[in-house]
């Protein structure tokens, strides 16, 4: 059952090959048996899942149930779920039980989706390896001594290990695409403003976006139909019409113009990764696309600009964690200042504290213009590079990550080395564009991802492009040994 795609599960549920309860039991049993190898779940919601599955079976029997009714999935532990701990991978929220659901959680509940549990992640979504979680690191199912990527490491690993058919995730600098690449699965980060951020714990508000981890582009299209919505409660949500993302999956790629940025194939890119990505792009030529070299000349300042903007925004967003209204509070606070300082210092991990301080520095008097304002100007130049490129090409392709999965500890001593993991993904967040990663090969037995960057609100086209690649190749069917 776990080797079926969601598209197949939907058909089988309606043909009564199995029920939602049986499907849910199957995945719950797999999580129980296998997740100690990966540590991809923080909370498993067994009783709730079975209750939701029974309700889904009743709706399916009554007829007219939504497409996703009865399908199980996992939510990254950054999305608020009523009555279910939402930790954000942090000691600060280890005791936080939200009194409300994130909008995306509500959307899925309305459509009869079954929640298996909450997945592990880098603390407060800050990381590229899932090594900073309060709940311990997540292991890559392809190589247990290697990282799954981050921050959505739990979502990626659980889908790769086929202990959940899909998982929600979030991407601020690459946190969906990079782990999807390292774990050999499909990941999509929609256009900024496409999906509501209400109830998604904020890291960097102008960069954060919710998205999906699945095994196929078709499954991502099915899930995006429910995930995307205009939400008045999120003031950065854009009121753009939502197409049926599955309707155009089979359109021909004839005439598609693919731009390949020369800046994404320079120093620092693993040779095996480069070859796998180049071969994937050649596959598109066979499907009728033409390939063009493009330039994104401000690519080299994407990481520096991001490491001003993201920490600055995180320092503001994380100031709400003060031990007063929710979350961790230190023992016996002696004064208000002591309450704030000790609750925060004891509740937050090292990387989070580091980023908060960098953010405070960038925003402090005397430094705001040199850092934050300067980075905001760089951001406009980075966006303009993409706008210019999209005048001559329809879509941009390149590597998602500079190399396949690395070993635990390999980059955690040097923050800057870790930051460079996101070198190809970060500009997309700065520009607010949609991005995907799909598997395109293995290097030394570890997956490589092809990144697809589309124009604003071009998710349907990107999913079509990814689906056609998956109809003509087998990389997305590969599973780690023993799965």
């Amino acid at each position, binding site marked *: 059952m776990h080797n079926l795609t969601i598209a197949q599960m939907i058909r089988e549920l309606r043909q009564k090959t199995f029920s939602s309860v049986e499907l849910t039991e199957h995945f719950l049993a797999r999580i129980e048996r296998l997740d100690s190898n990966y540590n991809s779940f923080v909370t498993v919601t067994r009783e709730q899942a079975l209750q939701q599955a029974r309700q889904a079976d009743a709706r399916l029997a009554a007829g007219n149930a939504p497409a996703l009714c009865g399908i199980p999935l996992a939510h990254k532990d950054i999305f608020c779920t009523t009555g279910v701990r939402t930790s954000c991978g942090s000691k600060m929220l280890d005791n*936080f*039980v939200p*009194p409300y659901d994130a909008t995306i959680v509500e959307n899925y509940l309305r459509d009869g989706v079954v929640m298996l549990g909450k997945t592990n992640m880098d603390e407060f979504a800050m990381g590229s390896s899932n090594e900073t979680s309060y709940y311990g690191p997540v292991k890559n199912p392809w190589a247990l001594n290697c990282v799954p990527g981050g921050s959505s490491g739990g979502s990626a690993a659980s889908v790769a290990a086929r202990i959940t058919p899909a998982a929600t995730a979030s991407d601020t600098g690459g946190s969906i695409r990079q782990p999807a690449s390292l774990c050999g699965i499909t990941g999509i980060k929609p256009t*900024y*403003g496409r999906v509501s951020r209400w109830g998604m714990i904020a890291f960097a508000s*102008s960069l954060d976006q919710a998205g999906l981890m699945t095994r196929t582009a078709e499954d991502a299209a099915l899930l995006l139909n429910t995930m995307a919505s205009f939400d008045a409660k999120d*003031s*950065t949500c854009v009121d753009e019409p939502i197409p049926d993302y599955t309707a155009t999956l089979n359109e021909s790629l004839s005439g598609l113009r693919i731009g390949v940025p020369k800046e994404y194939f320079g120093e620092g890119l693993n040779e095996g990764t480069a070859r796998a990505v180049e071969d994937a792009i050649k596959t598109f030529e066979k499907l009728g696309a033409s390939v063009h070299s493009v330039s994104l000349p*401000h690519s080299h*300042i994407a990481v*520096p600009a991001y490491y*001003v903007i993201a*920490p600055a925004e995180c*320092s503001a967003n994380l*100031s709400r964690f*003060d031990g*007063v*209204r*929710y979350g961790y*509070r230190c023992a016996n*606070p*002696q*004064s*208000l*200042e*002591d*309450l704030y*300082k*000790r609750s*925060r*210092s004891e509740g*937050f991990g090292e990387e989070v*504290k*580091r980023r*908060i*301080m*960098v953010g*405070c*520095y960038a925003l*402090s008097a005397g430094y705001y213009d*040199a*850092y934050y*304002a*300067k*980075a*905001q*100007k*760089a*951001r*406009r*130049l980075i*966006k303009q590079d993409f706008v210019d490129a999209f005048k001559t090409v329809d879509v941009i392709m390149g590597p998602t990550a500079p190399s396949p999965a690395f070993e635990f500890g390999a980059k955690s001593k*040097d*923050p*800057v080395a870790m*930051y460079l993991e996101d070198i190809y993904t970060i500009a997309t967040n700065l*520009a*607010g*564009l949609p991005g995907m990663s799909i598997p395109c090969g293995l290097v030394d037995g570890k997956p490589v991802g092809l990144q697809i960057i589309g124009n*604003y609100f071009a998710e349907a086209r990107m999913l079509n492009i990814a689906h056609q690649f998956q109809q003509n190749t087998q990389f997305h069917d590969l599973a780690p040994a023993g799965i």
Partner: protein
Amino acid sequence: MDRSEIEKLAHLARLEIRPEEIDEVATRISNVLALVDQLQALDTGNVAPMAHPLDAVQRLRADEVTEPNRRDEFLAIAPATENGLYLVPKVID
């Protein structure tokens, strides 16, 4: 970054850094700032700062109450409350 700058920054962020950790924190933050200093070389003369990827503006709505009062549910998850108030250590002597 020197020790006193780190101490000042920690206070702004309401974080406590132990004296024996200050040097390591200073080194790590300096490394990040060195990465970020690459921005200084960029010519941004006539460029307007971009705060939102799509240059969106804040939507407005009518000034009407649309949310229910859920105070008790929110108080229930707080560490210390009394009579509808959040409790903190004494602020005024």
